[in-house]
């Protein structure tokens, strides 16, 4: 009797396993790790998720990848490293995904890549800016998004163009925030002369930043560089304004985190963002390839909102996985990695290729991520109306910059 039961059980398990294999063969599973609940940046997570879904629909509507549809499996990381680690582990071991995309917070990406590296599964880092992600030198990790060194160079060059002498940065206490603040200091020292720079680390969870702001009242800097994600960034801007430290005729604000296109930006920041300079990875006036226009149109139709930078980064991440499978004609990790290393592909933001220089931040990084600088010239201004003061690949045009009166 017992052996008969065992036999039935074995048969059922075999049937289940067979059906799983059959199902898996019909689709290509791609894991998506995003923050869908606090304390992670859910604003970012939602934009990334939407971007990946738009890209998946475009791929699937066009017949999929070699006849197989892309199946997305989304895991919520809450922006917490240990949850990100568990999410990647689950996606790889239980869901058998062929690649991971979507991570948008450096701390979570740093945890996730450890697991992807251990299981040797391709990991497309959508928006983790920390250079440390690249410096790990993991062959599985590819970076089509922005990186801290690029922002640091942009900030240093902008400070030089503005003629700033005294610069203070406020950064969040994360790998991304502190890493970028340090890099900005290094780039200012390397690329400019006579600029005094210091940074102050703020706790993302804390809400009262006044003790860090008040000492600036006696000797306000020329520029305050903001390196925080919302809602901390919004609170900082409001408290700077409340104390009359910035924006003023003396002190400008430079947003190094690119928060001006967040959907909740204007609800949370009013006058406090007036004349703020913004490091921008997307502006409607930037030149855009056909694929970018298609993604933007589909996104607007889907969520009834204007496109944002994370949409394109997220879409590119999934497109890259699809292109790698097509080029490799395989979903094996080694084949996909080889394909990605040699890839030259026209994405939503330009021609993407990865550096194979195995040193520092350049490893597996798309070095030419396009960026601009734009300025907010009116309260509640849509991104399309924000004034471009630096075109892609050009220097900041000081004559276009408006000063606070």
């Amino acid at each position, binding site marked *: 009797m017992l052996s008969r039961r065992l036999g039935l059980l074995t048969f059922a398990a075999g049937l289940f396993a067979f059906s799983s294999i059959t199902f898996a063969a019909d689709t290509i599973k791609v894991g998506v790790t995003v923050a869908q609940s606090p304390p992670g940046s859910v604003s970012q997570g939602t934009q990334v998720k939407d971007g990946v879904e738009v890209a998946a629909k475009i791929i699937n509507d066009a017949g999929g990848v070699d006849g197989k549809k892309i199946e997305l499996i989304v895991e919520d990381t809450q922006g917490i490293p240990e949850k990100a680690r568990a999410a990647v582990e689950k996606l790889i071991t239980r869901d058998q995904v062929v690649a991971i995309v979507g991570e948008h917070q450096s701390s979570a990406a740093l945890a996730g890549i450890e697991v992807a590296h251990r299981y040797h599964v391709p990991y497309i880092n959508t928006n983790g800016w920390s250079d440390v992600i690249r410096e790990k030198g993991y062959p599985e990790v590819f970076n089509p998004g922005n990186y801290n060194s690029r922002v640091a160079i942009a900030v240093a060059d902008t400070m030089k163009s503005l003629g700033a002498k005294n610069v203070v940065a406020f950064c969040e206490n994360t790998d991304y925030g502190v890493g970028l603040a340090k890099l900005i200091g290094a780039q200012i020292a390397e690329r400019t002369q006579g600029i005094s720079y210091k940074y102050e680390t703020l*706790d993302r*969870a804390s809400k009262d930043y006044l003790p860090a702001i008040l000492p600036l009242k006696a000797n306000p800097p020329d520029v305050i560089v903001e390196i925080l994600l919302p809602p901390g960034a919004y609170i900082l801007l409001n408290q700077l304004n409340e104390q009359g430290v910035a924006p003023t005729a003396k002190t400008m604000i430079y947003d190094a985190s690119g928060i001006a296109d967040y959907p909740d930006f204007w609800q949370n920041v009013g006058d406090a963002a007036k004349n703020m300079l913004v490091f921008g990875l997307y502006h409607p006036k930037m030149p855009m390839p056909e694929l970018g226009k298609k993604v933007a149109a589909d996104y607007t139709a889907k969520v009834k909102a204007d496109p944002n930078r994370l949409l394109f980064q997220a879409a590119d991440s999934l497109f890259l996985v699809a292109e790698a499978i097509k080029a490799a004609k395989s979903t094996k990790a080694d084949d996909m990695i080889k394909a990605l290393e040699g890839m030259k592909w026209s994405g939503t933001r330009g021609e993407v290729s990865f550096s194979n220089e195995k040193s520092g931040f350049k490893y597996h990084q798309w070095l030419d991520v396009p960026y601009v600088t734009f300025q907010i010239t009116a309260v509640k201004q849509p991104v399309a109306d924000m004034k471009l003061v630096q075109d892609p690949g050009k220097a900041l045009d000081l004559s276009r910059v408006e000063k606070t009166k």
Partner: protein
Amino acid sequence: MLTLDLLINGLVIGVFYALMAIGLSLIFGILKVVNFAHGEFYMVGAYAYTLLALMAGVSPWLALPFALIAGLLLGLVVERLLMRPLYSGYTSWGVMRDEYAVIVTFALSIFLINVVDKVVGPYAYKGPALIDISRITIGPIAISGHRLIAAIVAIAVIVIVALIIRYSFWGRQIQAVSQNRLGASLAGIDTAKASAIVFSLAGGLAAISGALLANIFNPTPDVGVFPAIKSYVIVVLGGMGSVPGSIIASIILGVLESFGGVYISYQYRDTFGLFLLILFLLFRPQGLFGEKAREV
């Protein structure tokens, strides 16, 4: 000038801490348990105020009492549904009552955060200002009109609550239950009713604190986590269950964080309270106004 700025900021923040911590202290005083969902009452108040004012177009001055009522009602419902088992079988609960309270309030905290995250959304909402003046300058001091008014309202609420507890009929009964629940019960005091009032009042205080700070700290679903942690520290520093102790500890912590953030390091600002907590636990475990435990 900086010293004055820091002092004012510390006092204002201390007042907001006090508003938050009094409720927690009252709950501990009467139920002898820690409410881990206290921060979520704060969050509910912040959202009630913000959403009523922004989406329903209600005046912020009207939205404020609505937020208070939302907190009072939530406190009442939670007490009836979740906390009542704690003392309905008071004599037979023994050790389990602590575990029960921790698990129930912790689960409630996670539940409320996720409900708001899914229903309202994850985005930050800056609450409307009670007074539309972005900056009031008094000599060297600059303060937003809202922050000033909110601090005044907070002080008024604290004074009213202190007077109610000190002099009102139910306030005295709460004091009695806090001192000796069994004794109060034997003297004819309805301890269940006193507990319900305290839990409801604590919810209301946290909610109005959240509402007053909604313009300054832009609420998100997890906005209550951080002030709740501060409140736990304050309640221990002030003496578990002592309302005056909580008020004084709040002011001390607010001022200490303000000055320490500048003269020691802003990075370690949030550790000052914890450092103070360790010192108190070592040298004065009963807190500022707490009594040493006596068992017969």
